[in-house]
């Protein structure tokens, strides 16, 4: 327990060790700790951000769904309208076609009637001639009476 050079020696040793720790130990350990702290902080904020993103995405998805539904309803509406329109058009067309057919048929009937009348007219003159021949008992000169017969036929 004497006071001696050990005092100075320990002072120097202390100074050297403090320097060594300051130079070689403290900075790398602290850097590692701070880097980890930062990584954890970033991880946490990333998680927060991810949660926010998720909420946002959910909102967006819901919005999209709503839009899609509205659009679908719209499309169905339009389709309904269109279909009724098509039905209406078809009905109109059918009606027109029907009318056209009726007109056609009527004109055909008219034509047929005219033709029948024509032929009937022609036949009538022949029949009338034959009847008259029988009644008169003699032949009628067709050429002589054709004028009369034609007049008759026209009257029919």
């Amino acid at each position: 327990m004497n006071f001696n050079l050990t005092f100075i020696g320990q002072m120097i040793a202390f100074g050297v060790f403090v320097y060594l720790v300051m130079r070689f130990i403290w900075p790398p350990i602290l850097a590692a700790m701070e880097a980890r702290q930062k990584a954890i902080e970033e991880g946490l904020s990333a998680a927060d951000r991810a949660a926010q993103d998720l909420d946002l995405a959910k909102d967006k998805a819901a919005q999209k769904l709503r839009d899609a539904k509205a659009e679908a309803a719209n499309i169905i509406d339009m389709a309904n309208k269109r279909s009724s329109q098509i039905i209406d058009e078809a009905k109109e067309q059918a009606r027109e076609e029907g009318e056209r057919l009726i007109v056609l048929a009527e004109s055909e009937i008219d034509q047929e009637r005219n033709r029948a009348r024509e032929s009937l007219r022609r036949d009538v003159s022949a029949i009338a001639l034959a009847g008259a021949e029988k009644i008169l008992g003699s032949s009628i000169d067709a050429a002589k009476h054709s004028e009369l017969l034609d007049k008759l036929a026209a009257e029919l």
Partner: protein
Amino acid sequence: MASENLTTSSYIQHHLTNLTFGKLPAGYERADGEVFKDSAWTLAHSGQEAADMGLMAINLDTMGWSLILGVVFFVVFRGVAKKATSGVPSGMQNFVELVVEFVQDNVKSMFPYKNPMLAPMALTILVWVFLMNCMDLIAIDLLPLIAQKFGEYVLGADPHHVFFKVVPSTDPNITLGMAFFVFILILFYSIREKGIGGFLGELCLHPFSSKNMAVQILFIPINFVLEFVNLIAKPVSLGLRLFGNMYAGEMIFILIALMYGAGLLIGTFGGALQIIWALFHILIISLQAFIFMVLTIVYISMSYDTGEEH
């Protein structure tokens, strides 16, 4: 006990003497009658010789252990620092980071200024002083006995001349050496932060001050004496506190060790006491290392503190 023909007092004496290497003056007569013609550097053969060496001597045992423990501390922490990863830390890194974080928390809470040196110094103090104190827990006769046998059979020395104190912090040279290193830093930072004038003003114009010039001049010497004692008391109390605690603990271990030579019953009782005291001593060891660190931080912080009241 180390040797069969040791008395109680010589056993204690032996344990309290350092292995001292120093310079003995010319004409010095040793205990065995040898007389030096010229002054010579040699190992002290007794406590008396060690004392006669005066300042020009060095305690090989405490200085050596202090350096060994410092190197152990440095190697272990450097090993971790080299492989320090910011990923998941392994076992040893966990421990080192725990210590580093503890030191940093303490420094941050007590030292609001910027100083790149203080935290590493606090870490050095905490771990190094703790390791030095820890040497107290090794069986008190184990290392000295090994040293004695080594000295006797390998170096051919007289076993009674081989002194070996293994706890560096029971050597006031060691504790005061660290304390005065801190003291130098206190002076350095005081002067750097406050300037010479500010520092001297703090010493002379405080605690008594007066608006009256004449009275103020009268107060200066009184203030100086008070503040100077205050200033010197810092390193002295810092070093002696650690020394006193560890010395007392060591002494109790020595006294308990004496009981082993006093029969089976007392020896067993001594064994129980040894365990109890060692357990209690663990607290003292860590507490003293912590106190040394905290006071260092506080003192340096005070030297930065310019204070509004001056």
